[in-house]
Each structure stands twice: as structure tokens, then as C-alpha cells.
């Protein structure tokens, strides 16, 4: 009979990816309700240091799935390792953070068991012994409650921000066990990770950010946002489509593939608020959204919103701020 919750702990060269602690916090919340024990698994070749660190959290056991072929991440290697662990442990539930690395191998892992993942969940709850997961669909416009049929193992991933890393409760020291895992042929060869250019702009230090999205419509219209940024003393930033179109350089991109920021004021102009953008700015102090679509997800996290044409609103906003600041 399947039992227990297995949590995947992600790292790069032994350095923890903190999103893993969010998945652990989610596992702890479910473990209480399901009365199940938690095992954390760290995949790698020399990860005992990280395993010790994780053993300080409230869980039953930390497993190191080790094999020399697992020194660098590859989807082939990690899938084999996790398949081995899951077959040994027979857990009811396998929880992972919905990171780029997990997205790369976890569907392959689930497929080994003839299944899909319940991916990118924003919360999970237990009612009458069965788990309901909630996922965002249609780029954040709607939520869907997803019920698993319970056939183990159930694979689920949590979106960054679903739980807070500091919610992961500490414990009295869990046992650490090493499991030598089988890894078959690894077909892909990774090179060293790198950053494209030294980030010329560090937006994480900005006090005020004016960010533009698809709603700005053309590169010429950026001047509107630049003027607003100038009177506010703000840095200019953008959502992904703007940088994809090369209207602004990529070092001004906010979101999961760009920078994460938390200024005291974030003004989102024509940004709908796809989750990939929201994760990069949702901890900002005051959030302003100007968008013509009243259903845009950005309004879910905005303190102030204007539903309307940004080309009407922004010049007025700029002028009014100038007046208040006495800049006229």
C-alpha cells in the first residue's frame, strides 16, 4: 500500500533552490491533513551537505539519490534517479516546485508511470481524504480546482509563491539516508551555465518602477512611459513580450525569466499579468495597474487600478504628478 509524501529538493551544485522549501511547506500542510510522513529527496553525486541542511526541517527522512552520473543536471539522469526512488518508496504523493528544472524532467518522470503531472498548482487542500489542487488556467484569467483520482503516485508541482519558504517548519533533525540509484545512458551533454551579459541594469534596487506590457502597442509609444518614469524618478521595465520584440533590452525584463523586484511603487502599464510576470513583482509595496481589460489578472494584485485606455490615462497621470511635485 502506497504511503507517504515525497518532496523533490532542487539545487545547483549543492546550493538549495529556495522554491524547494515552498514545496516542502506545501507538503507539511498536506501531511498533517493526510496523516502521512514526508521524505525529502536530494538528487546528485555529492549532496550530503544539502541533505543535512534539509534534515533540520520537520520531516521523517532525507534521502540522497546518488550516482556519479548525477553531478550535473540532465533530464535523462534525474528521471532515472527519481523513478528508482519512487519505485523503492512507493509514495502516495510526489510534490515538486514548478521550476524550470522540474518542468524539464518531471513530465518525463510521470510518463514512466503512465501519468501526467498536476502541474503549477497555487494551492492544495484535503476534503474527505482526497486532495483538491488549484491551478491557474488561461494565463491566469481563471482558476480550476483539479481532483486527483488518488491512484498513486500522484505527481503535483507547486507554483513559486504558492507557499512561502519561511512557512517550512523546522524539526528535531530527520534521518539522512543514502540511496545508490541506477542511471542508464544519458544522451544530452550540458555545458556550464552562464549569464548572457553582466546585467547592466539592476532593477532589484529600484524604488519606483514603471513597467510596460503588450498594451503599449508600439515602440514609439514607449516615450509615454519614459515621461512618466522621468517625473516619478522611476526605472523603466517591461514584461516579456516587449523584450522579445526588442523594444527594450532584456535586462529590463521583469518576471520568472528576468529580474525579481520589490520596489515601493510598481506601475504596470498595459500589462495583463501572466503569472510569469507576477512572480517577478508581486511583492512590490504599492502596485498600480492601468489596463483596458477589466479581467486582466494584474488587477488581482493591484492596490490601485484604472480600467481604461493607457494612452488617455498616462499623460494625465504624468501631468498631475508634475503639478503635485511642483515640477511645472
Amino acid at each position, binding site marked *: 500500500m502506497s504511503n507517504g509524501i515525497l518532496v523533490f529538493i532542487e539545487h545547483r551544485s549543492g546550493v538549495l533552490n529556495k522554491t524547494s522549501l515552498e514545496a516542502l511547506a506545501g507538503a507539511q500542510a498536506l501531511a498533517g491533513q493526510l496523516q502521512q510522513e514526508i521524505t525529502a529527496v536530494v538528487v546528485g553525486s555529492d549532496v550530503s551537505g544539502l541533505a543535512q541542511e534539509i534534515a533540520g526541517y520537520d520531516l521523517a527522512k532525507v534521502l540522497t539519490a546518488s550516482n556519479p552520473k548525477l553531478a550535473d543536471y540532465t*533530464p535523462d539522469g534525474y528521471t532515472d534517479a527519481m523513478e528508482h526512488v519512487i519505485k523503492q518508496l512507493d509514495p502516495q504523493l510526489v510534490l515538486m516546485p514548478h521550476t524550470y528544472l522540474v*518542468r*524539464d*524532467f518531471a*513530465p*518525463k518522470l*510521470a*510518463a*514512466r508511470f*503512465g*501519468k*501526467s*503531472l498536476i*502541474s*503549477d498548482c497555487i494551492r492544495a487542500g484535503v476534503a474527505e481524504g482526497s486532495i483538491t489542487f488549484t491551478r*491557474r*488556467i*488561461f*494565463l491566469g*484569467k*481563471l*482558476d480550476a*480546482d*483539479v*481532483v*486527483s*483520482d488518488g491512484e498513486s503516485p500522484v505527481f503535483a508541482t507547486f507554483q513559486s509563491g504558492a507557499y512561502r519558504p519561511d512557512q517550512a517548519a523546522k524539526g528535531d533533525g530527520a534521518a539522512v539516508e543514502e540511496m545508490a540509484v541506477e542511471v542508464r545512458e544519458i544522451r544530452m*551533454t*550540458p*555545458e556550464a*551555465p*552562464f*549569464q548572457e551579459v553582466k*546585467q547592466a541594469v539592476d532593477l532589484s534596487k529600484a524604488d519606483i518602477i514603471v513597467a510596460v506590457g503588450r498594451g503599449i502597442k508600439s515602440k514609439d509609444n514607449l516615450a509615454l512611459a519614459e515621461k512618466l518614469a522621468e517625473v*516619478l*524618478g522611476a526605472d523603466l521595465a517591461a514584461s516579456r513580450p516587449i*523584450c*522579445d520584440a526588442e523594444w527594450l533590452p*532584456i*535586462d529590463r525584463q521583469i518576471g520568472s*525569466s*528576468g529580474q525579481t523586484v520589490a520596489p515601493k511603487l510598481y506601475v504596470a502599464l498595459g500589462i495583463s499579468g501572466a503569472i510569469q510576470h507576477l512572480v517577478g513583482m508581486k511583492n512590490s*509595496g*504599492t*502596485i498600480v495597474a492601468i489596463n483596458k481589460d477589466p*479581467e486582466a489578472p494584474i*488587477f*488581482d*494584485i493591484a492596490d*490601485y*487600478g*484604472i*480600467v481604461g485606455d493607457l494612452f488617455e*490615462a*498616462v499623460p*494625465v497621470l504624468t501631468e*498631475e*504628478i508634475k503639478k*503635485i*511635485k511642483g515640477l511645472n
Partner: protein
Amino acid sequence: MKIIVLMKQVANKDAILRINKEATWIEEADLSFEVSESDGYALEEALRVKEKVGGEVVVCSMGPQRVKSVIKDALARGADRAIHVVGDNLGHLSPYATASALADAIRDEKPDLVFTGLQSDDFGYGQTGVILAELMGLPHATIAIEVDATGEKLRVKRELESGWYQWYSMPTPALLTIQSGISQIRYATLKGIMAAKKKEVKEVTPAAEIGGRPSHQRIAKVYLPQKSKQTQLLGNGDAKAGAAELAQKLHTEARVF
């Protein structure tokens, strides 16, 4: 080099979504549709690889007859022919079942490369491509932002988080999921649109057992997201009045300048 590009038709980004009576999905009746954004980039990348190394680009889309518009558009942009996996109720298949149907449809083509977008704009599972790679026994890489198919091995630049990247190399055949923004998408030319009319579109039907496969997950309820913040909506439809009010509130209430 034969490249198969998987393209999904999804609800238009700007469409107003109405939840159905049962609150289990959206009303699709009057909806306008378009290709899922990253799938458009997958096609563009396939066309660019073909331009460099030669070969054939085959587009594959699954769904009811309406997905023909995605196929026609891809053929007009330069794809050579198409495979349409036809069925009316395929939208709610699990990623595993979807990948199984796609694998059946393209396996005999023996492609050198299979490209998909990194995730769809409707369900957003982000799994179908990777599961398909597993089912077809192919090595894969996700979130590809640059592809070099000119060498003996395929070289792929993957996007990691927080501005990091990593190159992976692997033998072909292989499957890649393509990130939006990998290149600028071309428009269909008039000549392309005319030429598309003569290109082959093969229809295939998924095996009956695909629909009967347990999906292990079921959408119980669809609803508008709960707001995490009380948003003050300003201007009441008058954007200019809202902007003036906003300036005051940012100054006196939020005190951010």
C-alpha cells in the same frame, strides 16, 4: 532534415471568457481562436532551421475542424505539409493521453526533430512535449531559446531562471520545446497564402482507446480567481479622471512620492 512542429489552437488572448453552466470549463461556442503563442515561435524556429540545413517542415495540430485555420496559417508561412489529428473532444485529454495520440500520429514520419511551444496558453500544463519525447524514446530539452542544428550533434541553448542560460548538446532525433521570443515571427506572404492551398493536409483519427485512458485528474470547478488584494478602481470608466485621482492617492494615501 525533417522537422515536425506541434501547434495547438487556443482561445484568443483578448477573448472574454465565459464560464459554462456546469462551471467545469468555458463556453467555447462564440469564442475566437488563435495559435498558442509559443507554438508560433516553434514553427518560426523550424522554418529557420530548414532554411539553413534543408529538409521539410511538417505541422501537426490536434482538435476539431476549426484547427484547420492554424494549419492553413502555418502552411502559408512556409510549412510544407500538415497532419491534422481530428476529433471533437480531444481538448480535455490529459497531457499523457494527448502525447500518446500525437505519438501515434507522427511516429511513422520518423522526424529528425520535433518542436513544440513550451506550454499552451489555455491549460498551461507544460508537459505534452516532454511526455511525447519519452513515448517516442527521444532525448529532449525544454525552454529552448537558441537552436543550432548545423553540426553533427544538435546544440540547444536553454533558458534557466533569473537570467541564466545553459547549452546542451544531444544526438538527433530529438524533441525541443521552444520559448517565446526565440526569433521574430515572419508574416505569411500573399504568395505563401496561395501556395498553401495546394499543400497536403492529412487527416488522422486517434485510436479509440486514447479517449478511454484514465486521465488521473479531473477539473471539478472553474471560477474567477479570488482577489488577494482589495483593488481601488479609479475613474469609473473615465481613464483621464482616474489618472488625476490616482496621482492624488499615490501622493496622499500611498505616499510613494
